[in-house]
């Protein structure tokens, strides 16, 4: 079954077509990657799927239900979560509170019990805090629980965003360049984290530049160029697609590391 | 977080402690303490500024002459701007903290009316410098006033118009307190004096151009004269605009601009404008036998030698202070009920505003004769007999 389905999606800014008649589907329980050169429209696709932008044409389906015109927060309620290419952590809250916002939909209740801090709310808050700590442990950032983002290293912030996104127990998680700006070891840790998320049954749609990472963890890869679909398939298929190679990967990108990918 | 709040509240406490110390240091006193709260800054500063200067000058003068009943006068003053809440707090401070014997002030009707309930409750003599008739009508036991009412000014203007056969007029008033009080009083009074107000427009006190309003009023048919009621620079701008538009009908201004600075601001456009004003403005031009002449000349000379052109507003605090001093002498001290009774019995006091005859039913004691009609000719005032 497809968790996400995109049909004929287009979006233009002024005269520029950022995304053109894009169609693809993401099957449940897979890690699906979106690659392409800078400016190919990857982040725009994410913004269209998560409801930050409205598409000029086309439809988006989540779990079979159309969400094209739904507000971003309603999509989140239907099981869509995401991270951001340029960090969007809440700088005015502690790391733990950031994750708690991720749990928001399951915690929100009427105004009065929140104002009076009712026993029911207190109980749920206690549980939520425990769960948030657990999520931070899962993402490997538990020691920053009471820290403010300003005092956390970049890599930890990336993980914090992932923890926040996972907190809502999404069906589909959109990860926008989770490894960008990270060093070798940090990237490998992120790789592990994404695998763990995938293993827990969450479907992942990934935008990433680090080809080794992409080739290693993706079940399927979609190649985007100039807002259009250039090719799609398993990592092995994509690697062999001459069009893809010509437009994006090039011989150099695969070069000496090619063997690793075949090994997968 | 506990540190945050204890810190902040701590600093607040230090501040309050400083106020307590300042307060206790100010108590030991033998002099007669006169409290005042005036609008020395803000939109009504042209009232409060000369009022405070006059008050300070004349208190020094009284003290130099040996004080009152052998005691010196001491002024405790707070600037309240246009803020009625500040006015109320200032009066509370004057009464409970500074323990003054009487209060002079309230440059504006708003700041005066805001403190009236307090003054009545605390039973302390209070002489207001503001204009509106509501201050003393109905009579309030402890409240007096020295300034003419706006109604009297309207009356003076309308009677002069009537005399010249200018029965149909257009009114342009400011949206500030003064302008709106004038507007209400004048519209109220017009019918009974046989004046019809055919056009009625307003301008903001800080507007820089009144041409649109004047253009609109010009097109009203049958208007024989214009009346601009406001104070500050607004009426001067309107006056200039009036001439620029080539309008030639007789133009009246109100006592709100009765000061030399209006002629300065309006320049040549002020020629031929008529307005009601207190005797103070034309001190030298009064007839020698005018009972007000010595008083207004003396005040004018004293004020102008120190500060520059005199205004009627400063005259109000001159009158208020001297009425108070006179009453303290008659009451033989500052026992509040006795002082109040003495102020109420003020009769025949010659002030800058006119001759004051107060009574239990009239806490102002001025009559229509207090206003003189003036015309501006060659950049100077001429009294119209």
């Amino acid at each position, binding site marked *: 079954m497809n968790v996400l389905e995109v049909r004929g999606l287009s979006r233009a800014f002024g005269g520029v077509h950022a995304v053109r008649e894009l169609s693809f589907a993401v099957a449940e329980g897979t890690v699906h990657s979106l690659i392409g050169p800078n400016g190919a429209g990857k982040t725009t696709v994410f913004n269209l799927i998560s409801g*930050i932008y409205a598409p000029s044409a086309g439809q988006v389906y989540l779990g079979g239900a159309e969400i094209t015109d739904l*507000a*971003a*927060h309603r999509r989140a*309620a239907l099981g869509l*979560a995401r991270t*951001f290419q340029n960090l*969007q952590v*809440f*700088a*005015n*809250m502690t790391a733990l509170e950031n994750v708690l*916002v991720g749990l*928001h939909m399951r*915690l*929100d*209740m009427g105004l009065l019990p*929140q*104002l*009076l*801090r009712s026993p029911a709310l207190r109980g749920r808050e206690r549980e939520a805090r425990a769960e948030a700590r657990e999520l931070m442990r899962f993402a490997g950032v538990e020691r920053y629980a009471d820290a403010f983002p300003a005092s956390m290293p970049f890599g930890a912030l990336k993980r914090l965003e992932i923890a*926040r996104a996972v907190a*809502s127990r999404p069906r589909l998680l959109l990860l926008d360049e989770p490894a960008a700006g990270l060093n070798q070891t940090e990237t490998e840790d992120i790789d592990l984290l994404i695998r763990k998320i995938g293993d827990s049954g969450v479907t992942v749609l990934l935008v990433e530049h680090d080809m080794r990472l992409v080739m290693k963890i993706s079940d399927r890869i979609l190649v985007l160029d100039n807002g259009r679909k250039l090719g799609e398939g398993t990592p092995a298929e994509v690697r062999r697609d001459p069009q893809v190679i010509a437009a994006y990967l090039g011989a150099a990108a695969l070069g000496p590391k090619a063997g690793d990918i075949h090994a997968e | *977080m*506990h*540190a*945050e*709040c*204890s*810190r*902040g509240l701590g*600093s607040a*406490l230090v*501040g*309050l402690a400083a*106020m*307590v110390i*300042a*307060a*206790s240091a100010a108590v030991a006193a033998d002099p007669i303490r006169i409290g005042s709260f005036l609008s*020395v*800054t803000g939109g009504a500063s042209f009232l409060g500024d000369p009022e405070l200067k006059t008050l300070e000058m004349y208190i020094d003068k009284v003290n130099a002459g040996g004080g009152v009943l052998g005691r010196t006068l001491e002024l405790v003053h707070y*600037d309240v701007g246009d803020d*009625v809440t*500040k006015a*109320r*707090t200032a009066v*509370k*401070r004057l009464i*409970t*903290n500074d323990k003054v014997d009487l209060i002079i002030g309230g440059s*504006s*009707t*708003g700041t005066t*009316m805001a403190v009236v*309930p*307090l003054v009545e409750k605390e039973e302390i003599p209070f002489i207001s410098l503001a204009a509106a008739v509501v201050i003393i009508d109905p009579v309030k036991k402890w409240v007096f006033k020295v300034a003419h009412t706006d109604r009297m000014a309207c009356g003076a203007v309308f009677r002069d118009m009537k005399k010249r056969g200018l029965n149909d007029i257009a009114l342009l008033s400011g949206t500030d*307190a003064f302008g*709106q*009080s004038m507007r209400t009083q004048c519209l109220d009074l017009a019918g009974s004096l046989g004046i019809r107000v055919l056009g009625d427009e307003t301008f903001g006190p800080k507007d820089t151009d009144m041409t649109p309003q004047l253009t609109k009023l010009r097109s009203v048919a049958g208007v024989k004269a214009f009346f601009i009621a406001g104070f500050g620079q607004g009426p001067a701008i309107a006056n200039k605009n009036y001439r620029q538009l080539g309008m030639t009908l007789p133009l009246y201004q109100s006592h709100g601009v009765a000061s030399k600075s209006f002629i300065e601001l309006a320049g040549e456009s002020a020629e031929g404008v008529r307005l009601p004003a207190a005797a103070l403005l034309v001190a030298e031009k009064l007839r020698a036998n005018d009972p007000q002449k010595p008083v207004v000349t003396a005040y004018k000379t004293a004020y102008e030698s120190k500060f520059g052109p005199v205004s009627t507003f400063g005259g109000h605090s001159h009158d208020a202070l001297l009425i108070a001093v006179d009453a303290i002498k008659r009451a033989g001290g500052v026992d509040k009920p006795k002082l109040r009774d003495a102020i109420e019995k003020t009769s025949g006091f010659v002030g800058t505003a006119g001759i004051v005859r107060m009574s239990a039913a009239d806490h102002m004691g001025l009559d229509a004769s207090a206003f003189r009609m003036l015309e501006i000719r060659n950049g100077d005032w001429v009294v119209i007999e």
Partner: protein
Amino acid sequence: MRRWLFAPRTGGFLVFLVLAVALPFVLPNAFFLDVAILALFNASICVGLNLLIGYAGQISLGHAGFLGIGAYASAILTGTFGWPAPLALAAGAAASGLLAFAVARPILRLRGHYLAMATLGLGVIVSIVANTERELTGGPDGMAVEPLSFAGFVVEGEAAWYWLALVLLAATVWLTINLVDSPLGRGLRAVHGSEVAARACGVDTDRYKVIAFTVSAVYASVVGSLGAHYVGFITPADAGFMRSVEYVTMVVLGGMASTFGAVVGAVILTALPQLLSSFQDYEHLVFGLILMLTMIFLPRGVVPSCAALFRRRRAP
């Protein structure tokens, strides 16, 4: 026990209560009590406004407008139409709430200075109406307000008002502290932190902003009503732009996103002009200078900056 004592919801609140309850017993006379009452009212308004500015990150330069709606509703309905005070207060609050709710959605879509301009315009319009509708509001001279009474009981004298204002502020502070730490409060703060991320987390940001705006407007209206009853007189200036700026200044000076900061800012800026009155002509000059220097040297506001300093000294 230690945790309990040092948490803002408990320890901080306790310190605040002890100080506030002790205060009337050390103040020498009614004037000081009067300043304290005004400070409490201002603090209440600022705590409500801080919800919008400090926590949700939405500026409002027109808050005095809502205050004015409450104040004039109480003045006109009790004075001219003889309504009971609580009913008039509720009517004012309802009017403020409806107005805020009606304009909130389009206005809160604006950001930064555009939002500042829109809220400013809203407030100015209220004060222009109050200034112009002379028959109803007394025009620029203002109008007297009846004393606060309900069910035959009249709130009179500084002492009674102090306790009333204190109960109001204490309740406000307590509810606000609860709210800020609740899911709703975190949602509001998330709007401030990053609106897109908040939406992606399932926070209905539009709704939250509307809630914050409406709640703080209703709250300002209620305090405006009570304040008008206390002072006994109102003028259009009470709803004007300068007054709105004063409230924002109190919030920012005390410290944004700090409930006690809002209280401290209100107390400082209410007491300061009284302290400065001995400077006479130099009052404004000194006031402006203090405002600038505080913000230059304590840019996050008095309370958060001092707290940071304190923490740094304690933990070397």
